[in-house]
């Protein structure tokens, strides 16, 4: 050994110094009002609630709590804008407004990214490189559709729906707002959107951008608030369509409450997606795919690959590599560019996740957690996997929405197809194999709206996203995403 070496390093470790994204350039108001008819207005109740940075548990700002009265004002403004302005705006002019919004978002991308990270707990590299660029690109993509809708639906006349009510979740706050607003506007509708209560800030920044873009007043209205605010949108008589992303439980309530009306609805709901590793898979990339599948955005992804299935021949090697990889994940301040796993979005969600971890342990599953340390303050959950689980374990059946993975092994392709499909959900699935014919066999038999073969958790504005079964109906993104916002005559 000595022949070659210089000084022998004893337990040397090369750790990364903090690399914090600056926050001095941010422009965050102390208090945010509702965005109705092109103006920021106080909520009728005069009530505001705190929005918290989940990494520090500190208050960032205060957000207006919109009521039924405010929703009614917003819907009226949206209806006026639809009848008087937006439905009379030529499609090509509509396109230019949407393009302009996209550009303004790009110009303020860094500010949006940092605010997203502060408000949601997701790591800055993700909001900077994924959420915000994808949100901008979504506007760019749909802008171009505005004057080309006839090409999307051959042989049919395309009409807008009117006023659409949209409710977005907290896991990808701005991106989900973009997924909702961009196609709605391109198809000629006006919008009343409610962001999730824990992550309203970027939607409100988007409201500022929309104001600056000169989009006619009332075409987009943003009403912040809690579930009651959302319910007021769902139940408002003058709304033509509801688009919701969130839990399956709430999705069912929405479908039920609009029964007896002519409202249309699309739902993007929960999932418990299978990520399947075959014995001929590119193992190291598959392990990275497992990590992307479940630890990306702290597992707050409806399409998270939360059920891992590994073929028995490679089970040990995959699990060992996965554990080693988990130990390398850096958990910590989401603003640090070297952080891999950020903060859990809220105290409530952290409790839900911890409850499931307890259930897993109580039901006899074997737990392994990353050796990386989480900060003391803030809402954090260490990446966790459970082995020795069966289909009947609750942690295998129910959506946890956190960095918690269950690992099952299988012997044959038929067995894994059956197990993967054995779920009320059907949002996504991952397949890892080197053999094309095998990939296509699995991809055609898995009941899921998105199949990631030899990759996972990829999103693109041109690519439709949405689920089978209880994962919802309708698609967002791509040509298919337009269908939710048009009437075909």
């Amino acid at each position, binding site marked *: 050994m000595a022949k070659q070496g210089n000084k022998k390093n004893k337990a040397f470790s090369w750790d990364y110094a903090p690399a914090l994204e600056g926050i001095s350039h941010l422009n965050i108001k102390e208090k945010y009002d509702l965005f109705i008819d092109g103006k920021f207005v106080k909520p009728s109740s005069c009530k505001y609630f705190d929005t918290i940075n989940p990494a520090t548990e500190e208050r960032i700002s205060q957000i207006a709590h919109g009521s039924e009265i405010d929703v009614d004002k917003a819907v009226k403004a949206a209806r006026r804008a639809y009848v008087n302005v937006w439905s009379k705006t030529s499609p090509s002019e509509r396109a230019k407004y949407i393009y302009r919004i996209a550009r303004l978002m790009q110009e303020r991308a860094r500010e949006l990214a940092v605010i997203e990270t502060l408000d949601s707990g997701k790591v800055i590299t993700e909001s900077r490189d994924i959420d915000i660029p994808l949100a901008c*690109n979504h506007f760019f993509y749909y802008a171009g559709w505005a004057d080309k809708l006839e090409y999307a*639906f*051959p*042989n*049919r006349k395309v009409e807008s729906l009117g006023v659409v009510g949209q409710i977005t979740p907290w896991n990808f706050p701005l991106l989900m707002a973009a997924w909702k607003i961009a196609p709605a506007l391109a198809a000629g509708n006006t919008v009343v959107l409610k962001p999730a209560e824990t992550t309203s800030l970027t939607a409100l920044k988007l409201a500022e951008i929309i104001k600056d873009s000169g989009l006619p007043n009332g075409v987009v209205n943003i009403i912040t608030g809690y579930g009651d605010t959302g319910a007021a949108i769902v139940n408002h008589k003058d709304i033509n369509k509801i688009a919701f992303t969130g839990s*399956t439980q709430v*999705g*069912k*309530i929405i*479908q*039920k409450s*609009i*029964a*007896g009306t002519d409202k249309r609805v699309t*739902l993007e*709901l929960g999932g418990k997606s299978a990520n399947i590793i075959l014995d001929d898979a590119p193992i190291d990339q598959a392990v990275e795919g497992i990590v992307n599948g479940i630890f990306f955005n702290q597992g707050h992804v409806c399409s998270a690959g939360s059920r891992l299935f590994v073929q028995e021949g490679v089970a040990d090697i995959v699990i060992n590599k996965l554990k080693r990889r988990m130990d390398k994940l850096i958990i910590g301040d989401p603003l640090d560019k070297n952080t891999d796993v950020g903060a859990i979005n809220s105290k409530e969600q952290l409790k839900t996740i911890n409850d499931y971890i307890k259930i897993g342990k109580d039901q006899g599953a074997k737990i392994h957690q990353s050796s990386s340390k989480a900060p003391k303050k803030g809402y954090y959950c260490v990446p966790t996997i459970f082995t020795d689980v069966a289909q009947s374990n609750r942690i295998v059946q129910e959506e946890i929405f956190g960095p918690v993975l269950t690992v099952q092994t299988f012997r044959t392709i038929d067995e894994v197809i059956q197990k993967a499909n054995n779920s*009320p959900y059907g949002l996504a699935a991952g397949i890892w194999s080197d053999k094309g014919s095998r*990939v296509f066999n699995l*991809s*055609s038999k898995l009941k*899921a*709206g*998105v*199949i*990631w*073969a*030899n*990759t996972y958790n*990829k999103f*693109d504005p*041109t*690519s*439709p*996203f*949405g689920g*089978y*079964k*209880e994962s*919802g*109906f309708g*698609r967002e993104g*791509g*040509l*298919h995403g337009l269908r939710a916002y048009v009437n*075909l005559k």
Partner: protein
Amino acid sequence: MKRLEVLKTYKIYIGGKFPRTESGRYYTPLNKKGEQLASVSQSSRKDVRNAVVAARKAFGGWSERAAFNRGQILYRIAEILEGRKLQFIEELIFQGSSKSNAEKEVNVSIDRFIYYAGWCDKYSQILGSVNPVASSHFNFSVPEATGVVGVITDQTSSLIGLVSLVAPIIAGGNTCIVLASESKPLCAITFAEVLNSSDVPDGVVNILTGSQEEMIEPLTTHMDVNAMSYSGISKNFEKQLKESSALNLKRVSIYSKDWIKSDNQDLYMIADFQEIKTTWHPIENIGGSSSFY
């Protein structure tokens, strides 16, 4: 001496067989003249359950069948319908249609199957897409059959209402449970005989007669039914349908159309019972050079 006519027994159609309702009940709808149409099976909850089981069993095979083959089978249905045209016309007239309307209804029904037979191996090309994602992946979307569909047919028609809903559903690879017109059930069962002799696999279409009010609840709440298709005008009924469908998020399609019009058929009725599946796969870009072109 006048020959005694042999009367037909109208049974229900489940899994390719013609059982009587397990309940043993029957009802006797009347035509406008007050004549009894027949002793028709009054299906029960259990018949609904059995029909769903049969439809689920048939789904895998039917949805995975080559599109071309599905087209052939739908064309075959039209052929057999054509051959039994007179029987349907007689039944329609007996149930209250004028001769000319009856003839038109049968003709449109036959042509409707021809129309959808042609779509079987084409709709994927129109409804699917290749999506130019910005990353190094090949990405495409294809429509896939939703699954088991509950069909509540137009009460006012005996044949064309049923045909108009069922054809796009099975053209798209789904299987279904059909609640026939309660007051005019004859053609539905005769149509089942057509299906039975047209190479349609057992269980792809299951047809029940009886009280819609009784069957709608077990059908729309059934957790193994993926979608509902309804043609009618009752708003209350629509509400109940949507509310029950929320239990497992059934896709609900409601149509209000004059089915006898020959252009009331289209691609988007197939699309209503399709799920869009999008598949991603990396593209290995060795060298990444365009100089090879």
